[in-house]
Every structure is written in structure tokens, then in C-alpha cells.
């Protein structure tokens, strides 16, 4: 009898009901978050962000004069050579970092 009264009291207790609702909300949020982290959606978004970054990255200025002459071509040639030579194979793809000693083997 006393036990039944306790249960009724518990059901009527708003703190208990709100607590259960919050627990349910947390569980569902965790589930959704887990689903998102495991889904392909996250990878797709990361890929889109990477692509956006690539397209937003402003290209180095190349002369786009409408006048085609020797000076224009000289300037363009210099700019292209500067751009290409700005990438160092030794820095970007160093063989030294793949040696056994560099890898600690």
C-alpha cells in the first residue's frame, strides 16, 4: 500500500518527469551525434569544405592584360617560372624523412 503510494507520488513528481525527459533527450542527442559522426555525411561535408578552401584560395596574380605583346609575355613567363619554382620537391617530398633512422626503425 505504502509502496503504491510512493510510485504514485513519484509519477506525480514533476522533477522526476522532467529528469526522465532530459535523460531521453540526452540519449537521443548522443545517438544522433554518433550517427552523424559515423555517417558519410560528415566525410562529404569535409570534402566540400576542402574543395571550397581550394577554390577560395586566391590564385597568385598573373597578368591578364588584354594587350598581347612582348612585355606581357615576358612578365607571364617570369610569373609562371616563379610559381613553379616556389614549390620545392626537397621540402615537399623529402627522401630523408622516409629513411629508417628518420622513422626510428
Amino acid at each position: 500500500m505504502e509502496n503504491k503510494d510512493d510510485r504514485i507520488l513519484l509519477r506525480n513528481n514533476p522533477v522526476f518527469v522532467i529528469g526522465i525527459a532530459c535523460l531521453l533527450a540526452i540519449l537521443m542527442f548522443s545517438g544522433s551525434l554518433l550517427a552523424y559522426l559515423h555517417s558519410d555525411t560528415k566525410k562529404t561535408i569535409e570534402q566540400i569544405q576542402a574543395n571550397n578552401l581550394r577554390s577560395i584560395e586566391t590564385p597568385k596574380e598573373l597578368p591578364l592584360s588584354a594587350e598581347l605583346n612582348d612585355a606581357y609575355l615576358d612578365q607571364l613567363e617570369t610569373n609562371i617560372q616563379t610559381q613553379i619554382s616556389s614549390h620545392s620537391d626537397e621540402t615537399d617530398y623529402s627522401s630523408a624523412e622516409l629513411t629508417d633512422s628518420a622513422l626510428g626503425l
Partner: protein
Amino acid sequence: MKRSELFVSVVFILSAIPAVLVSAQTDVSLSDVGTYSVDARTARIAALREQYRIKLSDKERELVVTRCEPAQTSLQKIAFRLNETHIARTVTYDDVIGSLDTVRTLIVAKQIDPSNIELLTVEYQLKKATFEIAVSDYQTALEDSIQVDCKAQPEDFRAALEGVRSARKDVVNSSTQITELTNSNLKTAFDTLKLKLGTGDGVVDGK
């Protein structure tokens, strides 16, 4: 069943639904891909073991087993940096090809034969495609070396590492070809074009 027990049961069932959904989704969409990917990696590493005739002595095995995990961490950093340099280089090469395309437009507007610039553009496009393939192979080789269970299969890790070294060489070779193209053919093509601009030689409509 008491009401409170029923309520608790419903809560637990509801909480299990997202986990079941995640599991089901993963099973449906990625299970096959994962299997194929692992099979492909196993095949690649087996080929590399055969190619480089990887055989480790007991001492070498132990050395690899004890030290391979930090090595894999270093390889992971190299893979991360590779992605960054790949993006930077792709931007540069696309810029160059875009600039040559602009030059071609200007040449056509002047009614001069654009074939040498078109040829140069195609050469850049081909070299860039070769570079892209080499980088993709390098990324795959790095991924293989990072994913292989180096403690259980030290020979496989060794083979994967040799694959990484070989793939790096291909990337450097393809990059060198682009540099060489820039140093030789670009100048030649522009010099020819300057000559045409000065003399009016090569005018398409025969004026």
C-alpha cells in the same frame, strides 16, 4: 508488468534505436567497401613483398615490432602534409594552364596561329595528370603503411614502407617533369609567339 518497469523498458528501447540505425547504416553502406579496401591493400602489400623479397631475421622483426608504431605516426604526419602540398600545387598548375588558355584567347583574337600554345597547354595538362596519379599512388602507399598491423605483420610493414619510398620517387619525377617543361618548352613557345607577333607570321587568315 509494473508501469514503472514498462516505462524504463521503453526508455531503454528508445535509446537503443539510434545505435541500431548507425550499425545498420554502416553495415549497408560501408561493409562491402571496407572488405574490398582491405583485400586490395592485402594484395598490394603481397605484391610489394614479392617485388622487394622482404625477409626479416628474428632480430629485425623484433626491432620493427617494437618501433613501428612511432614510425606509423611519422608516416601519418607525412600523409597529412602531402594533402596540403597537393592542394597548393594543384592551384599553381591550374593557374598556369588557365594563363596559357588566356594567352591562347588573345592570340586567336589577333588571328595568329595558336598551335604552339595549344601544344604547350596540352603538355602541361598531361604532366599535371601524371602528377595527380603519382600523388594518388603515394597517398595510397602511405595509407597502406599506416593501416597495416605492423606488430603482427612486420614484413608487411616493411614491404609497405618500400612501396611508400618508391611512390615518393614517382611524385618527384612527375614534379621534375613539370619544372623541366617550364624551363625549356615554355620559353621556346613564348619566343616563337613573340616572333609571330613581331612579324605577323602565322596569321591564320593569311593577311
